[in-house]
């Protein structure tokens, strides 16, 4: 049976753990709200960008000289997977889920005879994937020392993807990230970036005038569209991270509470047993006299 002192120490240590997880949960909740707001603020731009792209895509569709960003290279031999994960841990299965999803995707693609290249955004996913696929890494980005993600960060990621496309380093680009379904649910998902999925423009598209030409606008619009897709994924992943962390810290706090109850019960029992034993000793000593 553990001594009273060691039980007391354990109770104290679990109590301080509980305090920490509780505080982390509150911090995550506050940050989640901010991250969600940021994600929502980015939505109007993305929606309007999609609308404009739909109109433009319809105008240039089927032209042989369409930009690579829109139609790809015409092959599907080499895949570039951009895997977005979090910078920090202590967030439940968030990083594991997205990394496992990426791993399965890589295995599927390689089984189908494709070449896979990986670019990671976020430290945690990179660490996981490097164990198995170190030689497939072509790029690594980390925003660990930044408080919030800005559009410029997303632009730099997008620019590096564009450069690689121009060098002919890959044919298809996919973005793998945790989609933010709700505060308690994030699903890892893959989104194809290149060739771009042009949104269907609504019925009865107006005949637009273009200034300058369609091609010129498109060559400017497409990189921007790529950046906004990456930006959205980063923001969703960021919001998902805090959601997941909040859930993880919530259950950790509950577990700590249960543990404290169990240990306290154990402590009281032991204390009672000690008293009873001492009493028996005294009584039987007195009887023997």
């Amino acid at each position: 049976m553990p001594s009273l002192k060691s039980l007391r120490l354990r109770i104290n240590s679990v109590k301080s753990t509980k305090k920490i997880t509780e505080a982390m949960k509150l911090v995550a909740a506050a940050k989640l709200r901010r991250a969600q707001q940021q994600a929502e603020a980015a939505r109007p731009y993305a929606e309007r960008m999609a609308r404009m792209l739909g109109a433009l895509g319809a105008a240039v569709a089927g032209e042989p000289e369409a930009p690579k960003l829109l139609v790809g290279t015409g092959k599907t031999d080499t895949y570039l997977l951009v895997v977005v994960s979090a910078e920090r841990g202590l967030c439940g299965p968030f990083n594991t889920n997205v990394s496992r999803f990426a791993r399965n995707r890589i295995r599927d693609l390689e089984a189908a005879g494709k070449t896979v290249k990986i670019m990671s955004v976020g430290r945690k996913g990179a660490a996981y994937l490097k164990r198995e696929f170190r030689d497939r890494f072509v790029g690594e980005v980390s925003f660990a020392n930044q408080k919030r993600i800005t559009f410029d960060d997303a632009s730099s990621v997008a620019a590096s993807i564009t450069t690689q496309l121009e060098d002919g380093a890959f044919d298809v680009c996919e973005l793998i990230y945790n989609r933010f379904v709700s505060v308690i649910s994030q699903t890892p998902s893959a989104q194809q970036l290149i060739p771009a999925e042009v949104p269907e423009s609504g019925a009865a598209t107006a005949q637009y005038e273009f200034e300058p030409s369609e091609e010129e606008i498109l060559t400017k619009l497409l990189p921007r569209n790529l950046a906004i897709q990456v930006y959205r994924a980063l923001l969703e992943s960021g919001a998902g991270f805090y959601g997941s962390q909040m859930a993880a810290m919530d259950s950790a706090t509950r577990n700590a509470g249960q543990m404290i109850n169990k240990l306290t019960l154990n402590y009281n029992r032991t204390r009672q047993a000690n008293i009873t034993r001492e009493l028996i000793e005294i009584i039987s000593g007195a009887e023997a006299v």
Partner: protein
Amino acid sequence: MAGTFLLELVSPEKLLLSRQVEMVVIPAAEGEMGVLPGHVPAIVSLRGGALRVYEGGQVTETLFVPAGFAEVTPERVTVLADEATPVAELSRAQADADVAKAEAAYTAAAAESPEKREEAMDRLLAMRVKKDLATAA
């Protein structure tokens, strides 16, 4: 007075403006473009310049946009700007620094492909406009 149309100004980080206005002057790539209600549908790319909003026959808002796109339909104008700053909030020192940076980038791009050079040039011109606006404000 002529009717109004919906002007939306969005940057990747937020929706900056969404209201009914009478006229807007857009710094389009091939010259400034005044848009009134009932304009022919058009998609234009923007160069750096001032976006002027007219309400009640007066300029009510002037914003600097470095680059972007605009979609014009008879009843709506959507401007997708990389960023947008009210001219009154532009600072001279900041604009000077931006011009210097753009100039350096342009010099560095001299050896690059023509597209890169053009991009740097556009950026430099946009920053010069920004500086002019900042000086005037």
